[in-house]
């Protein structure tokens, strides 16, 4: 599992193309938001901007990690290797998570600089909320990217598959971010964080168990 993770990360950092493209995309989406929101509204909408941007940019990034292997034919090599299929899922999930975390850091900087949310007063809590949200998103997107990559209309299909099931993450992550950005502690956001954590556990375990069904040839 670690070697798959290492391979994915190595590939990302050697080429840097995915991360660079993802960061530019994140910048562009935030700019699009700032142009379409008035400054006052933009500040209030910061948690929504954060998660909508992460989700839409993230969907493209996650799809790519599967596409790379499919195009190079390395996918079959991976499947033939003596590893548990669930381990492939977990490795992909962590690789996607790390890439998304980089985008998340850039995005948070942009919120402070461009949207004027002000420097977060509770940075640790914000990291915690974002981590919980990202794990859930990453797990769900990784699982369904394994489906969409095999079908022709994959760019359209992945958001279709992920977005309805992502509702708990969208609601809870946005509300928890709103509380934390406003200076509230993790205790104030606890009900949301509990749902997020439960989602993370359920989807990760389900993905780990069901992934095998998606990669049978």
């Amino acid at each position, binding site marked *: 599992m670690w070697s798959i993770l290492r391979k994915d990360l190595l590939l990302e950092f050697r080429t840097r193309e995915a991360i660079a493209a993802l960061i530019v995309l994140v910048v562009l989406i935030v700019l699009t938001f700032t142009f379409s929101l008035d400054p006052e509204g933009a500040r209030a909408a910061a948690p929504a901007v954060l998660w909508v941007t992460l989700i839409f940019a993230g969907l493209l990034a996650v799809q790519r990690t599967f596409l790379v292997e499919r195009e190079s034919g390395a996918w079959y090599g991976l499947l033939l290797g003596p590893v548990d299929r669930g381990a492939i899922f977990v490795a992909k999930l962590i690789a996607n998570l790390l890439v998304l975390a980089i985008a998340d850091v850039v995005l948070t900087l942009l919120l402070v600089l461009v949207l004027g949310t002000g420097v977060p007063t509770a940075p640790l809590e914000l990291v915690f909320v974002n981590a919980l949200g990202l794990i859930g998103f990453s797990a769900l997107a990784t*699982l*369904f990217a394994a*489906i969409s990559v*095999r079908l022709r209309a994959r760019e359209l299909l992945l958001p279709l598959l992920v977005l*309805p099931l992502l509702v708990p993450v969208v609601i*809870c992550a946005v509300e928890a971010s709103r509380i934390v950005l406003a200076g509230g502690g993790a205790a104030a956001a606890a009900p949301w964080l509990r749902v997020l954590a*439960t989602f993370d556990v*359920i989807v990760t375990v*389900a993905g780990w168990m069901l992934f095998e069904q998606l990669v049978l040839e």
Partner: protein
Amino acid sequence: MTIRARIAPVAETVLPGLTFVAMIAALGCVFLYVPNERMQGAVQRIFYFHVNAAWSAFFGFGLAAAASALFLWRTDETYDRLARAAVEVGMLFCTMVLVTGPIWARPIWGTWWTWDPRLTMTVILWTIYAVYLVLRAMGEDDPQIARYAAVLAIVGVLDVPLIMISVRLWRGMHPSVISAPAGQGGIQDSRMIVTLVVTLVAFTLLFLWLVWRRFEDLRLEDELHALEDDVDALGGRAVGGVTP
């Protein structure tokens, strides 16, 4: 096939007749027998369609998840067809819920739609299973599509409690613009209870019968494709001109 063979005689003969009789009785109850609700008037009668359609929709989605799990476990295509038929019929009833709800809400709540947890939940469910049908349509030529769809149905059902909790929390944090639904004040009139039971039976029978019809359609479709493949294997001579 053994389970199918056991069900088939009942489903082919008794079920359609029973559904017909129950549906006539249900219509009679709703339009002739049951009295007008005191506060809401005649529009309340849509309740008997709305609630029972919701029951059938949830029944369908639950059945689809169970059949999907069985399919992944046993790899028997019968379960895949059952899951697909259940989702399709469930979607029909879910759409009916989303249509009858606003018709009632407009005169009673004064608005077609409100982001009440139950309404939000229903519309999210509808999108999940709409995607299931899109997935099936898009991957029709992929031999693995049944597995993908099964995974979606299972993850969907696992997700439902979480969606329900987060939607509740979400509404709890915001002021409701329109007064909340008056809650189920409890039905006092015995004729209303009789009507509800009769319509519930009718809708359940209708659901079962539609699932059965669709299930048989899918089975015949698969058999036809298998026959076509046989014909092709025989040297590709055009026999009859069978087109799907």
